[in-house]
């Protein structure tokens, strides 16, 4: 059977499954006890195997088969997920990705996977590679009194860990207490509060799981656990707790210093691996868009129903981009005909014709909105591979860091989406490698061990901004300059008068690298200049701000070519213009006598200050409008950064969602104009560039 017709479907679906495998694996790494995640992973792997086998990609099928074997043991509780298993599975995913990539490029998807297959088979046989042997016994000895202390519950951070250590050293008792409340209890939170109240009278609660806030909001099942420092006898405490009403059981385990050390080691190891933040940090950082977002859910609420809401797949179909282009062009033609019909209707003056043409008008404007939005893609499709990349990177560099993604839903035109991935990878790598310090350096600088890299996307004006901000060491101006002078990029004289921004821009000069050590991640001096040229070809630019010791912000500004923005449509005599809504502060009317002339420029009172009044008609040489002829004129107050100005216009038409188009290759740059849009009647309206109007 000829499989070619199914090939593209296979590639698309494989990529989907690989993406979901990656995401779920990260999620599982964050909460290894959650079997429901393993089920999802297993199903994805199984489907992938089936597809690969059908299509005749044997290596692909063989590797997924081995992964499935491992996952099968895990989901049947015969194997506990451990670090080396995660690593091997991630490696397998990488190999699978490489194979699918090969198939995409017309290859046969063959690869030597024998090494990975062998290690997967070893895992199935229950063998543990040397490096991970410590982890397993640690787990065993962590339960000396028979009480299960699962890793999930033991989310002690360094600080809490050291408190416990000190308490033990000072001769206090450290207890791990697990309290379960009766099933029929109505006010779980109240009971839990009573337990806390009781305990706090006789000692100190160091850490509870779930957190105190979560318990107060009744976000726990029936039991909670905590670390407790006290002088009291465990049995006495137990009796006290059980004396409270509706408490079913209380388990108290004394923790000695050995157990604590082992716990600490284990935690440390887990944390280095887990790039996802621990639950308490995730709960604070609300807009986290990584696996971390789902983690509090996984940890706090184990009901599968709640998880399903998160994992519900969006219902989509795949459409060739070219078909969308054709659709868009056909639709534009339809619009022109619509205008003709409208004109005819006004000439013929038939009631019925007018009504149906009006209805057609309404339908077609809805249709227009939908057609225009079809080309827009959420930047999520680019961002979703970053959590995994950053995890691997941080691990190979021995750093701890959180990647916090916000604005992944920001929409960009498909063409920009396709191009922006690589530059962002470079910038992220740069931040992780050069920005974030090693753990030792961070501790020495009094910073938290875990660094944070923020990846943000948002619309602003007629641009999309993508920002990468780290809380690392910042850029050392003198180091950059010294290196630049040595390489002959600038002279010493020039360097003295350079602004910080100019100095930071040197990082983007070809062949420039300040890293003392060349690593295989970045620092070959070839990354950032490529980034800059790529972004320039997309019509954007990169800005850098940095504070030594506090971090660096790379801000990528991209034009919204072909993307949709909200705009205020205005009239200037017979001409129509669009002003991006995002740069409008407000609209209003001023009388002629409110305008003051100061040194030849016009000012109007605005709130408590005066702002310049610009004549759009003069700036654009409008043929048939001049606000000077009017006693009162409409104004639009626009903003660029903290500067504002008022534009005098003829009248407002209204607010619209518009699609930004460029003016064609022949007119690349026109002062004060950022692009054009096609109005509902098929006419072209120009889009103002407020940034160019405010000097």
């Amino acid at each position: 059977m000829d499989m070619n017709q199914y090939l593209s479907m296979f590639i698309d679906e494989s990529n989907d499954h690989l993406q979901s495998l990656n995401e779920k694996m990260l999620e599982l790494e964050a909460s290894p006890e959650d079997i429901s995640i393993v089920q999802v992973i297993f199903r994805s792997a199984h489907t992938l195997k089936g597809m690969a086998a059908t299509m005749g990609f044997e290596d692909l099928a063989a590797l997924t088969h081995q992964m499935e074997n491992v996952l099968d043991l895990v989901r049947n509780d015969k194997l506990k997920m451990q670090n080396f298993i995660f690593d091997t599975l991630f490696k397998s995913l990488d190999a699978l990705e490489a194979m699918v990539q090969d198939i995409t490029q017309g290859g046969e998807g063959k690869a030597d996977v024998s090494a990975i297959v062998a290690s997967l088979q070893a895992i199935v046989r229950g063998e543990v590679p040397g490096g991970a042997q410590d982890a397993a016994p640690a787990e065993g000895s962590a339960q000396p009194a028979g009480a299960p202390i699962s890793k999930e519950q033991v989310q002690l951070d360094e600080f809490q860990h050291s408190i416990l250590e000190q308490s033990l050293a000072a001769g206090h008792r450290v207890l791990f207490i697990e309290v379960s409340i009766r099933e029929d209890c109505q006010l779980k939170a109240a009971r839990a509060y009573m337990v806390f109240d009781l305990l706090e009278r006789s000692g100190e609660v160091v850490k509870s799981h779930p957190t105190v806030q979560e318990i107060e909001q009744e976000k726990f099942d029936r039991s909670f656990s905590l670390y407790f420092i006290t002088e009291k006898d465990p049995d006495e405490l137990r009796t006290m707790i059980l004396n409270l009403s509706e408490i079913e059981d209380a388990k108290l385990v004394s923790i000695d210093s050995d157990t604590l050390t082992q716990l600490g080691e284990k935690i440390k190891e887990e944390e280095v691996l887990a790039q996802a933040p621990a639950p308490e940090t995730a709960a604070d950082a609300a807009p986290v868009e990584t696996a971390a977002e789902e983690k509090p859910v996984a940890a706090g609420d184990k009901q599968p129903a709640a998880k399903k809401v998160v994992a519900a797949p969006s219902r989509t179909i795949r459409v060739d981009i070219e078909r969308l282009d054709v659709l868009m062009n056909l639709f534009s033609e339809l619009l022109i005909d619509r205008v003709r019909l409208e004109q005819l209707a006004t000439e013929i003056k038939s009631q019925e014709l007018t009504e149906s043409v009006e209805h057609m008008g309404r339908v077609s404007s809805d249709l227009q909105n939908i057609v225009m939005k079809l080309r827009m893609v959420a930047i999520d499709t680019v961002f979703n591979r970053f959590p995994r990349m950053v995890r691997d990177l941080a691990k190979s560099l021995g750093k701890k860091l959180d990647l916090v993604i916000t604005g992944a839903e920001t929409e960009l035109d498909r063409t920009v989406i396709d191009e922006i991935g690589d530059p962002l990878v470079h910038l992220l790598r740069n931040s992780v490698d050069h920005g974030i310090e090693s753990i030792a350096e961070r501790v020495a600088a009094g910073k938290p061990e875990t660094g944070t890299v923020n990846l943000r996307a948002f619309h602003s004006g007629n641009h999309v901004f993508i920002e990468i901000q780290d809380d690392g060491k910042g850029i050392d101006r003198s180091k950059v300059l010294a290196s630049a002078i040595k390489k002959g990029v600038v002279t010493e004289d020039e360097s003295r008068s350079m602004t910080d921004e100019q100095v930071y821009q040197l990082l983007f000069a070809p062949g420039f690298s300040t890293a003392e050590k060349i690593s295989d991640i970045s620092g070959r001096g070839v990354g950032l200049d490529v980034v800059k040229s790529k972004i320039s070809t997309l019509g954007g630019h990169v800005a850098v701000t940095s504070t030594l010791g506090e971090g660096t912000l790379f801000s990528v500004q991209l034009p919204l070519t072909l993307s949709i923005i909200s705009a205020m449509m205005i009239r200037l005599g017979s001409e129509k213009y669009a002003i991006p809504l995002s740069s409008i502060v407000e609209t209003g009317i001023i009388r002629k006598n409110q305008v003051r002339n100061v040194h030849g420029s016009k000012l109007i009172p605005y709130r408590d200050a005066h702002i310049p009044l610009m004549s759009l008609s003069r700036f654009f040489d409008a043929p048939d409008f001049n606000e000077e002829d009017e006693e009162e004129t409409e104004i639009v107050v626009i903003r660029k950064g903290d500067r504002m100005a008022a534009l005098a216009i003829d009248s407002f038409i209204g607010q619209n969602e518009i699609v930004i188009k460029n003016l064609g290759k022949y007119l690349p740059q026109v002062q004060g104009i950022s692009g054009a849009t096609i109005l509902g009647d098929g006419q072209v309206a120009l889009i103002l560039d407020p940034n160019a109007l405010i000097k």
Partner: protein
Amino acid sequence: MLQEWGQGARLNKGGFFVAEQIKVIVFALGNEEYGIDVDKVRTIERMMPITRVPKTYSFIKGVINLRGVVIPVIDLRGRFNLEETEYTDQTRIIIVAVGDMEVGFIVDAANDVVDLDRDNIDSPPEVVGGVKAKYLDGVAKVGEDRLLIMLNLAEVLNRGEVAHLEQLED
């Protein structure tokens, strides 16, 4: 030997060399007839509403919406420093494509397609119909008494040259 016959020269059935034939769109500006290779022409449109683009050269009349694509439109009369006239029913916009650049030319009329032998195109004299030679590829003879002025599109659309021209005018 082949080269002397020009690229694309081929043998006819009888084994004789014949010159390459090209199809040319014919349009009018004033009293002259001009030609553009049909391969370079995307479509010919009737006059349609043009949105003025401020702060550009006066011969750039603005932009049009051609089936969803925004395309700049140049008045060829203005481009060649000929006197601009009112648009009539005969006025056409010829959409040409050079590389990935699409531009519309406003011309007095466009209503003919002719076949030309490349051999029949002669190099242009200095100025034809008020248009400088560098904008022209040559002059072709059609039939007995018809002369077609072949446009050099690359030069007509050369932006750098436009800037220079503007400087001279200032």
